[in-house]
């Protein structure tokens, strides 16, 4: 049987494009909020758009924060996308302080700029430190353009958790994180054309 990717369903945001991208890449996926089904998957995707507080409340209301933590502890991979990546952090300052899943130590803060927000658009990926080999960016060319839409961004405490950065109006933003089997992308790989699809393809194959 083909391996299955669980898309965590917590009643928020638009997951259609993630499902479409996985179909395009011939991956089997299931959108579910059931503990057993999620724990049975080979890997998870935690999607999300919108506000941090609402996202966390929805996760906790369904007990999915616990499920995610349990899933991670088995060593299987998880990929958080956009808000899904931000919720991996310790806490967020969006609408007061809200605690996150605390899988990546650090804060989520408003992008420190006087320029227009949200940051909506395509910007380049580059490495912060370390290499992209043996990661979801292994097949990604340096300076690939990917699609961002966000007002808040994650700031990992540990430099080693940065997988990639981008720049918005001269400000460095954490574009992707990696800590062991935990991945997160602030950009939307499912909306980043062929560059994005190759990142998802790599995630499917790890």
């Amino acid at each position, binding site marked *: 049987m083909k391996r299955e990717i669980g898309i965590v369903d917590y009643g928020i*945001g*638009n997951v*259609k*494009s993630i499902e*479409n*991208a996985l*179909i*395009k890449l011939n991956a089997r996926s299931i959108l579910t909020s059931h503990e057993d089904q999620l724990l049975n998957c080979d890997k998870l995707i935690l999607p999300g*758009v*919108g*506000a941090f507080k609402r996202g966390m409340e929805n996760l906790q209301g369904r007990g999915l924060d616990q499920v995610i933590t349990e899933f991670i502890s088995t060593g299987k991979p998880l990929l958080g996308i956009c808000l899904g990546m931000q919720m991996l952090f310790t806490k967020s300052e969006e609408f007061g302080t809200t605690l996150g899943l605390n899988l990546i130590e650090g804060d989520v803060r408003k992008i420190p700029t006087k*320029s*227009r*927000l*949200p940051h*909506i*658009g*395509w910007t380049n990926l580059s490495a912060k430190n370390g290499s992209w080999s043996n990661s979801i960016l292994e097949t990604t060319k340096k300076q690939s*353009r990917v*699609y961002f*839409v*966000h*007002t808040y961004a994650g700031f990992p405490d540990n430099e080693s958790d940065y997988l990639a950065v981008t720049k918005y109006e001269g400000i460095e933003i954490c574009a992707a994180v990696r800590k062991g089997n935990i991945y997160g992308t602030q950009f*939307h790989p*499912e*909306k*980043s*054309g*062929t560059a*994005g*699809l190759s990142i998802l393809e790599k995630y499917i194959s790890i």
Partner: protein
Amino acid sequence: MRVIGRLDIKNNYVIKGIQLEGLRKVGDPIELALKYYEQGADELIFMDAVASLYGRNNLFHIIEEACREIFVPIVIGGGIRNLSDIAMALKSGADKIAINTQAIRNPKIIEESVYQYGSQCIVGSIEAKRKGNSWEAYIENGREETNIDAIGWAATLEKLGIGEIMVTSIDKDGTKSGFDLDLVSSINKAVNIPVIACGGAGNMQHINDLIKSCNSDISAFSAASVLHYDLLSITDIKRDLGVF
């Protein structure tokens, strides 16, 4: 800067008029959307050109089909009246919802939808026509005037919480004679959220003029006729702009 392909749709055909009138069929929406995606479009806008007339948006099935093969952000607009329309649009695969007529008739829809889906999901669409030294906001795809000042309305939309503004110059729409630079730069100055300039793109000079008039601080522009009639391709535009 984002280069966006815009498809105005009526009865399952991409149509294009001049100043939002005299609509002519120019092609199949899925074919054109795929073509622009393959040319490297950063985003696509699907507008239902007649939705307000019939009180419904007809694009959901088109979006659903397009999204199976297109992996860049999709904006849908035209005839979005309430939260259930928005839910259906998102379910069909759209990422952002552009609202004009209903935002003016019932601004509460903006606050409610922003609360429900986040500001990044809601695009304030403004259709503006020059009136003396200012611009008036129009609704119903350019058919009905409102006496509302377009620049002031842009600022109000930002306060209501939208994440982005899309401004279409009715005077310039379909003319391929350049953007309404004064309109776009005035709106761009009035808000601190991204702005998409629509209406008038005819050649590279027009795009460079737009960038210059906004001091290189314009988030995006859309092109329609110039792409539909193969006068420029998105590949050409992005190469000339130096974005890949």
